[in-house]
Structures are given as structure tokens and as C-alpha cells.
């Protein structure tokens, strides 16, 4: 099978290898600070997902798949959305409304602090996982041909 889209270049490999962890860190940062600054699950998830695209572009699809396999994306895919749905059910379980945050008695914390916003952070993390895995699996899907 043809190895798609691969650039065998020393500079690319070195710089790419250096960039990937930073990208991932930045993605996680954006996810966790979504309620404080511009960003959130979608932006952060995309950044984190793109790190894997960069990795696969530089090192080839095979190593990329070894890092994050199809099964892994599939599990992340489902669990991210599932997590969101289950978080929504917390409100119902506590006798209040679906997806209810403050009204369901969830502590909000101080606005402006990292751990504040109650369900918002949990939701954002779920979305982040989902988006990252979606970006990766869509990339795999289209490139694999």
C-alpha cells in the first residue's frame, strides 16, 4: 500500500517532534480555560487534535496510528459525547432539570478561578476529548485512501 503524504525531511522531523507536545499542552490549556478566556472545548480539542495530524504528517501514518489507534479514537469519540450526556443527567438525578448547573445545587466556585463554573468545565473537557478524537479520526479516514 502506498504511504500517503509523508515528507522525509530532517528539519521537519525535528521541529515537528518538538512542536507536538507543546501543541497538546496548549490544547489542554485552551480546554481548561474555556470559561475564563476565549476558547473552550471546540478550539482546544481542535488544537490537540491537530497535534496528531502534524505528527502523522511528519512521521507517517503508521507511527501515528501506533500512537493513537482507531480503537482509541473510537473510544474517545463515544466516551466524550457519552460523558456530556451523563453530565446532563446529573441534574435529573438530583431532582432538577436536564443539564442544570447552579440550580441543581452544583457549586460554582468564584468566577474567574480555574475551578469554577460547575458543570461548564466538565462539559468542556468532554467536548474537548470528542473534538480532538473527531479531528484525528476524520484525518485518518480521508488520508488512508
Amino acid at each position: 500500500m502506498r504511504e500517503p503524504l509523508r515528507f522525509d525531511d530532517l528539519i521537519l522531523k525535528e521541529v515537528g517532534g518538538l512542536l507536538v507536545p507543546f501543541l497538546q499542552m496548549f490544547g489542554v490549556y485552551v480546554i481548561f480555560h474555556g470559561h475564563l478566556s476565549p476558547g473552550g472545548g471546540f478550539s482546544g480539542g481542535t488544537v490537540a487534535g491537530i497535534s496528531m495530524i502534524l505528527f502523522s504528517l511528519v512521521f507517517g501514518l503508521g507511527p501515528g496510528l501506533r500512537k493513537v489507534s482507531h480503537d482509541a479514537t473510537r473510544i474517545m469519540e463515544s466516551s466524550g459525547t457519552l460523558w456530556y450526556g451523563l453530565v446532563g443527567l446529573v441534574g435529573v438525578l438530583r431532582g432538577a432539570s436536564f443539564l442544570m448547573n447552579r440550580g441543581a445545587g452544583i457549586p460554582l466556585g468564584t468566577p474567574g478561578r480555574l475551578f469554577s463554573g460547575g458543570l461548564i468545565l466538565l462539559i468542556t473537557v468532554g467536548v474537548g476529548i470528542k473534538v480532538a478524537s473527531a479531528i484525528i479520526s476524520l484525518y485518518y479516514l480521508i488520508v488512508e485512501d
Partner: protein
Amino acid sequence: MMGSVTANLPVLIVAVVLIASYLMPLFARYRRDWCAPTAAGALVAAFAGSAALAARAVTGEVVIVHLGGWSPPWGIEVAVDALTAFMLLVLTGVAMLILVYTISDIGHELAARAVGWYYTSFLLLVAAMLGMAMARDLFNLYVFIEVSSIGACALVASRDTEEATEAAFKYLMLAALGSGLVLFSIGLLYQVTGNLNFAFVAEELTLVYGRYPHVIWVAMCFMVVGFAVKAALFPLHVWLPDAHSFAPSPSSAVLSGLVIKIYAYAMLRLLYTVFGTQFLGADLAASLIRVTLLTLATLSIIGGSLFALVQVDVKRMLAYSSVAQIGYVFLGVGLATPSGLAAALIHVLNHALIKACLFLAAGAIIYRTGKRRTVDLAGMGRRMPVTMAAFTIGALAMIGLPLFNGFVSKWLLFVGGMQARQPVVAGVIILSALLNALYYLPIIWRAYFTPGPEQEESQVEVPLPMLIPIGVLALACILFGVWPAPALALVNQAVATLVPW
């Protein structure tokens, strides 16, 4: 906690189906035989929930949920009134039956790897339609529309053939254009009203109508065109025949039976509740848009039937027949009289039952014999008696013979046409029934009165899990033809709440 479950029942119905669909990929990978029971279980639960809601809604009660506890202008509202409950019942009931059929059929039509994803898309589509039915917020409606159009395209694309892929692509492009128009229209409405909730938008629209007449009219036109594309109203139906005929049979049943209906429902809901004054008003523009709807519906009915007449492929014929039948629904919407509206709604149910029955029966024939052309069905009445009996019932109901459910919608449309002083409606429908007879009866005639090829005399009925949904749908066609009272109770309640005539 029980109390909160009851209070949140509408959302939970959607959530159950959604969560089941989220689980499907995992099950497909690690516990393949859990897929089908989970999917079926979720739909049965949703059906039970819908029935419970319908029992409350039929009395005129409206079950309202404020998502996250935020009351309307701030948050998203979800409500189940009689109209929504009716749609929920139709959607979950028919989807449930089709899913049961799918369990046996789909392994035959798709590669093994795709089956899990097929269930995922199926459940997503159903959940999205349920969400659309109960949405009371423009943007919420839009997001559900997108889920449903992607889900619907996925069901078409699931078959690994060139035609299905092309059809899905065409469908996706036109659906995306349609939702682009809808989204633009939502933008216009938001701009002039500052709200997204149906009730608030409607209230503001009456206040600002003098200030922004063009904006509101353009928004309404875009809404109508956007939904008409998705519901396959006549000149905008070009995607439908390919998509519905090349898809796997259960997909065709869902698409023809339910998906185009839910867009018609969404348009109906928006026209009557959001644009109430602008749509139902007595001024020239309002009557112009009603007449346009009526004209397009008429063209749909006649054009769809004429195209169906010349098809050689059974499923393609059924697909064109759907174009004609969706015209009935829009005819009722455009008549804007109580009976017309009731006819539109009851036809949503009736056509869902009939078309699902016909597509599943056609699918069963393809499953067993691989025959898709109408001329090849000779002798099928002896080879597949139950399937062909169901097909016959569906066809007779489609023609609209009395004591079949199709007649009930037909009659209500007649009455609606008389109420609206549009006697032409009666002529159109009678003509359409004749055309229907012209393309359905030859199939039945061949199936029963022409001997099939000599070597194919043995009986080859499909397995029971496929027969049961077909049979139940066929019986429902008769049941709602002989005893439409329960459906009509819900529909009349819906009409009463929709417009204060």
C-alpha cells in the same frame, strides 16, 4: 427523582436515543451482539415515553421543559403539545418497527464493519427528528436539522455502490444549501426580534412587523424554500428519487416515511406559530404565499405521480410516489383551514405507515429474490404471500380506497378544500388517486395473476423478524382506516392548539 424524570420526560426521550447511539460504536467494536437489542430497547423506551406524553397531551396539557432550568428568553425550551406528541408517536412507532426489520435485513445489504455505524446513524437520525419535533427554539431546531440531514445522508451512503454514494452526495449538497437558507433566515429573525424562542419571536414579530416588513417576508420565504428542499416539494425534489431508491430498504422506509415529514412538520410549526400573523393574515402577501404553497403542492402531487408512472424500478417508483404524497401534506398546510391542517397531520401518520410498509415489503422481495423491476414481480403473490398481501394493502391505502387509512386523509383534504373555497383541491386529489391506481395496480396484478418463471415456484417468505414489522404496518394501515378516532383525537387537539380558529 421520579418526579424529575416525569418532568424531564421529553428531553429524556431524546437523551435515551442519543446515549444509545453514542454507545453503538463501542458495542460494534467490543460487543457486537449488543448493538441491535440496545438500539431496539432505546426506541421502545422512547415509544413508551412518547405514549405517556401523548396521553397527557391529548387533554390539552403542554409538557414544558426548560433546559438547565433557564426559562425561555434566556435558555432553551422544549415542549410537548398535542402536535408534538403526535409526531413523537409517529416517529418512534414507525422507527421502532423499521429497526426490527433492519436487524435481519441490514447484514444482507451492508458489509459487517458498517453495521454498527449504521445503527449509530439510524439512532442519531431518530433522535434528531424527535428533537426537531419538540424544539421551541430556532437555533435548537437548526442544530437538530443538521444532525438529521447528516444522519439521513449517512443512511443513504451506507451502501457501497456508486449510485448510493452519488445520491448521498447530491442529497448532502442540497440539504446543506437548504439549511444554509434556514440559518440565514434565523439570523434575520434574530436580528429583528432579539429572541430565538418561538413564542417570543412570534410576539416580537407582531410588534416589529411595521418596522421591518421586508426582513420578515424574506425570512419567511427562505424558511419555506429551505424546508421545501429538505421535504422534497416538487421543483426542489431532484435529490429524492436517487437518494430514496439507492439506499438500503430500511433507510428508504425511514427517509420516505419519516424524514421528509419531519421537515414538513417543522415548516408547519414555524409558519403557524412563529409567522402566524404573517402567514394566516388576510393581506395580499400572506395569501400569495399560501397560494404558492398550494400550487407547489399540486405540482408535487401531479408531477410526482406522473414520474412514478414511468419508473421501472419498484423502489424508484415508491420514491416518486413520496414526492406526490408529501404534496398532500403541503396541500393541507397551504389550505390553512382546520380540516386541511388535520388532513396534513393525519397524512403524516398515514403516509408514514403506508410508505414504510411498501418500502419494507419491496425490501423483503429484493432480500429474497433480488428483483427490483416492477415487471419481474410476476408470481410473487404465490411465492411471498404475506409480503405481497402487505404490499397490496399498502398500495390500496395509497390509492385511497375507503376503509384504508389513505382515504381518511383524502377526505379531510376534501373537506379542507371546501372550507377554504378551493374545490380544485378535490379534483387534484381524485386525479392523483387515479394515477396512483395506474402505477400500483399493475404490480399487484402481475404478482397475483401472472405466473412467474417456471423454475421459481417455491415459497420463499422472509424470516419472521422482517415479516412482523411489515405485517404490523399493513394492519395499522387498515386499523387507522377503519378506526381513525384515536389519531384524530390527537390531531384535532393539535389543530386546536396550533391556531385559535
